[in-house]
């Protein structure tokens, strides 16, 4: 070594020590008289500072603070999981009433080898950001005085617990002040060091003697290299063991040496990679099982095929009770009543044709879904409702069906297969009705369906088709049974004038469904879209009316009526389809009861930050067109009690709105094996994420929130 350097090295040890003593003595004196001046504080191995990013904070606003630890050369402090030994820094605040300090945030660590062991920590400098929130009623201009008792363990070969009482006074003003340029770079760098959400799904396979971790290359920035995985919890991996990262097709993969708790420890962690000039890091929250490869039925993945088929069947059966399907089914049953007593053969034909119609439609939808998926599209059940023109067309359909049932217009029996009792509506009519029942089922998601379809779509195409067809079969089953089982006919009431009354009454659930679809459009494309689709509906009604008036006429009158109907239909369709251009209306905040829990919009970053800060999080993936979602929110997630529990747990409630297309939410759903909403995921610190049932009650949410109390 160059002697001058060695001298410098010796000095760098001796000088700070002397300086530190002097500083400490001074500080000790100052501390007695004015503790507020103690910032920075130098200990034997660390100089600690508390900084604020802006020159003034506004009431009701927030500002980032930084706890900066300048660490003596050769020494290190620790990450949240310190690795084989050590302890992360802590901070205890003394704050004025109403001021709230968030948790310490940890930039991604480095691997620090200590003999045969390894620590996760920081050398040189560690910057921990803290978000400080000021209450709205803070008098602007009055400074905020805060005190932080920070403590940390600092180690070289040996370890010293140290601490400092740091004080800081923040000026406040009506509006937030400008960034303090002297510290701007430090805050910028600190933010870059925080792990970011991974744009994709990492997977962790736990087998007895090794852990296989894989991360899609596309989830990392282009050109990223030298990955290293830092486990968030002790016991998952051997911290010191080598990690043999290699590129395998479209994934970065590594075989990790398991730690003492590999079977049960949380799989979460941080992946640091070299990208460009520096290193960046990403939160990994690997899904436990490997995603099934196409061509093979996975032995153990979530649901399993038999259960998926069962769920599909139950889901299909339940669809019959949904407000969008029930009227159609009811009408079909009335139809059966109409001539049901007559011939068994006729009923049989009806039942089979109806089932055929349902299955044909589901096969069509399945084909479309699978083709879109094969093309790389991110689609799932209900995805069609993300396209405003489709919603508009469905609204028209329900409107026209309603008009028909109410008796305002007469539609061809063969076309609609509803209500008409003549023999002309035989098998082909039943087939069309089946297709129609399946079509009107599209806006509805029944319980059990989501899990079955989500699983089904990860399977090879033939199994996916089987799941879809089972769903359709479930939908068709009640009617099929009525038609096939002679004894069932006895339960059917006798025909009579009540049938007309019921038929007219059933128009109203259909109108209600149309109203709901228009509301979905309001969320998707705003008031202009609503005006367009309502105008379209009026045009359609006008056209149908014209046709109705001229039905009995002949010659040019009749042609005029039909022409008017066709023109109205075309105009309505054009209005509906043009809605697509209005897409991307800003998301509208939907009305909530005043004392419901406050939700923040979902973002992967927000989720990752909160989890890093060990804050519990509930993610609610919803959409305006998802009735189950809306019911769950009303029943289980809106009461003051839930709001109270959320705030008692300091839970962050994130709501993702999938009403319009959103690739981030689609990717999130995929990570949990879903292709549609609703999806509820609860993250408790130190535990694996927990997927809550698709039908929620307050009890389920409360029990999940408090696993310990729930177990008693």
């Amino acid at each position, binding site marked *: 070594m160059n002697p001058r350097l060695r001298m410098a090295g010796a000095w760098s040890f001796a000088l700070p020590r002397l300086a530190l003593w002097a500083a400490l003595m001074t500080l000790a004196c100052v501390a007695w008289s004015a503790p507020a001046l103690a910032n920075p504080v130098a200990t034997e191995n660390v100089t600690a500072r508390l900084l604020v990013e802006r020159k003034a904070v506004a009431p009701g606003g927030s500002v980032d603070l930084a706890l900066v630890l300048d660490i003596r050369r050769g020494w290190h402090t620790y990450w949240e999981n310190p690795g*084989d*030994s*050590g*302890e992360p820094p802590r901070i205890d605040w003394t704050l004025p009433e109403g001021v709230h300090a968030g948790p310490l945030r940890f930039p991604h660590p480095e691997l620090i080898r*200590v*003999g*045969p*062991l390894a*620590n996760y920590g920081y050398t040189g400098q560690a910057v921990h950001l803290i978000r400080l929130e000021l209450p709205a009623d803070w008098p602007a201009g009055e400074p905020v005085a805060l005190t932080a008792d920070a403590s940390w*363990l600092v*180690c070289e*070969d*040996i*370890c*010293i*617990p140290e601490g400092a009482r740091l004080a800081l006074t923040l000026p406040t003003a009506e509006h937030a002040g400008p960034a303090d340029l002297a510290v701007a770079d430090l805050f910028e760098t600190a933010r870059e060091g925080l792990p970011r959400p991974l744009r994709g799904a990492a997977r962790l396979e736990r087998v007895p003697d090794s852990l296989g971790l894989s991360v899609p290359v596309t989830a990392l920035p282009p050109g990223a290299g030298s990955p290293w995985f830092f486990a968030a919890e*002790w*016991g998952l991996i*051997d911290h010191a063991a080598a990690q043999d990262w290699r590129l395998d097709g479209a994934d970065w993969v590594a075989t990790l040496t398991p730690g*003492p*708790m590999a079977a049960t420890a949380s799989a979460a962690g941080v992946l640091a990679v070299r990208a460009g000039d520096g290193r960046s890091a990403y939160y990994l929250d690997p899904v436990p099982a490997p995603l099934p490869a196409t061509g093979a039925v996975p032995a153990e993945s979530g649901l399993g095929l038999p259960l998926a088929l069962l769920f599909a069947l139950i889901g299909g059966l339940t669809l019959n009770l949904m407000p969008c399907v029930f009227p159609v089914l009811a009408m079909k049953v009335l139809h059966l009543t109409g001539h049901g007593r007559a011939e068994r053969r006729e009923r049989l034909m009806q039942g089979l044709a109806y089932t055929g119609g349902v299955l044909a439609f589901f096969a069509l939808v399945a084909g479309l879904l699978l083709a879109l998926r094969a093309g790389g599209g991110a689609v799932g059940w209900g995805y069609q409702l993300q396209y405003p023109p489709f919603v508009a067309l469905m609204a028209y359909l329900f409107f026209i069906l309603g008009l028909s049932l109410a008796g305002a217009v007469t539609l061809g029996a063969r076309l609609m297969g509803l209500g008409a009792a003549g023999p002309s509506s035989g098998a082909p009519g039943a087939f069309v009705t089946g297709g129609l029942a399946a079509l009107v089922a599209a806006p509805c998601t029944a319980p059990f369906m989501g899990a079955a379809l989500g699983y089904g779509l990860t399977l090879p195409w033939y199994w996916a088709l089987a799941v879809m067809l089972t769903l359709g079969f479930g939908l068709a089953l009640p009617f099929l049974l009525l038609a096939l089982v002679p004894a069932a006919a006895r339960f059917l009431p006798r025909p009579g004038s009540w049938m007309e009354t019921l038929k007219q009454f059933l128009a109203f659930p259909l109108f209600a469904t149309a109203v709901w679809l228009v509301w979905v459009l309001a969320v998707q494309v705003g008031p202009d879209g609503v005006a367009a689709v309502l105008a379209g509906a009026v045009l359609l009604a006008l056209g149908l009316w014209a046709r109705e008036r001229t039905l009995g006429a002949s010659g040019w009158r009749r042609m005029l009526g039909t022409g008017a109907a066709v023109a109205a239909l075309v105009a309505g369709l054009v209005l509906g389809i043009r809605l697509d251009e209005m897409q991307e209306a800003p998301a509208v905040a939907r009305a909530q009861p005043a004392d419901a829990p406050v939700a923040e919009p979902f973002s992967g970053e927000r989720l990752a930050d909160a989890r890093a800060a060990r804050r519990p999080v509930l993610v609610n993936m919803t959409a305006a067109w998802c009735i189950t979602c809306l019911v769950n929110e009303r029943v289980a997630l809106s009461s003051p009690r839930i709001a109270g529990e959320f705030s008692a747990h300091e839970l962050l409630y994130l709501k993702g709105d999938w009403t319009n297309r959103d690739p981030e939410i689609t990717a999130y759903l995929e990570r949990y094996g879903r292709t549609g909403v609703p999806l509820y995921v609860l993250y408790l610190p130190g535990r694996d994420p927990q997927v809550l049932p698709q039908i929620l009650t307050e009890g389920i949410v409360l029990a999940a929130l408090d696993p310990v109390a729930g177990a008693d």
Partner: protein
Amino acid sequence: MKRYARPTALSGALLLAAALAAGTLAAAPQVGQPAPPFSGVDTTGKTWSLAELKGQPVILEWTNHDCPYVRKHYDAGNMQALQKEATGQGYVWLSVISSAPGKQGHVPPAKADELTASRAAAPSAVLIDEAGTIGRAYDARTTPHMYVIDAEGRLRYMGAIDDRPTTDPADVAGAINYVRAAMTELSAGAEVPQAVTRPYGCSVKY
């Protein structure tokens, strides 16, 4: 030269494989399995081996008297109380010092005895493991790092001494002591519910 090249490479590979296999075995002591065998010399020159201790339950404590986490438990009298409790129940308590010469915590035998006397500690013996052989066999990572072995020689607990990973002596009072809990369960003939915990402390100075 060339004639020997192949056999040498082959036996080299075999040796490497054997070393790797042994390394794997040594690196992962498992709860419920036979504890890794060891043999070590105490401060009086007496040799202690696990094989000879068969029939007696054993507690291993990795220690380093200068480590703040170790000091927390000795200054509060916590470790000494636990030692007396365990030896009173028939346990053999071995405090192991795996610090390499020149590293923190490394002491000559006389100094180790002096520490035992001055701190009123009550281990059955203090093993000087300056080569780190026992430490590596047990994958000991921190001071303190605790291991409980039953009378049949099976490892029943490994990990932290308690659930408060701090250096603050005030935390001793309310802590759940995992070693005491393991002793209670074992004397009742039951499994240790938390058989593996995260050890906390300073790294072992190999």
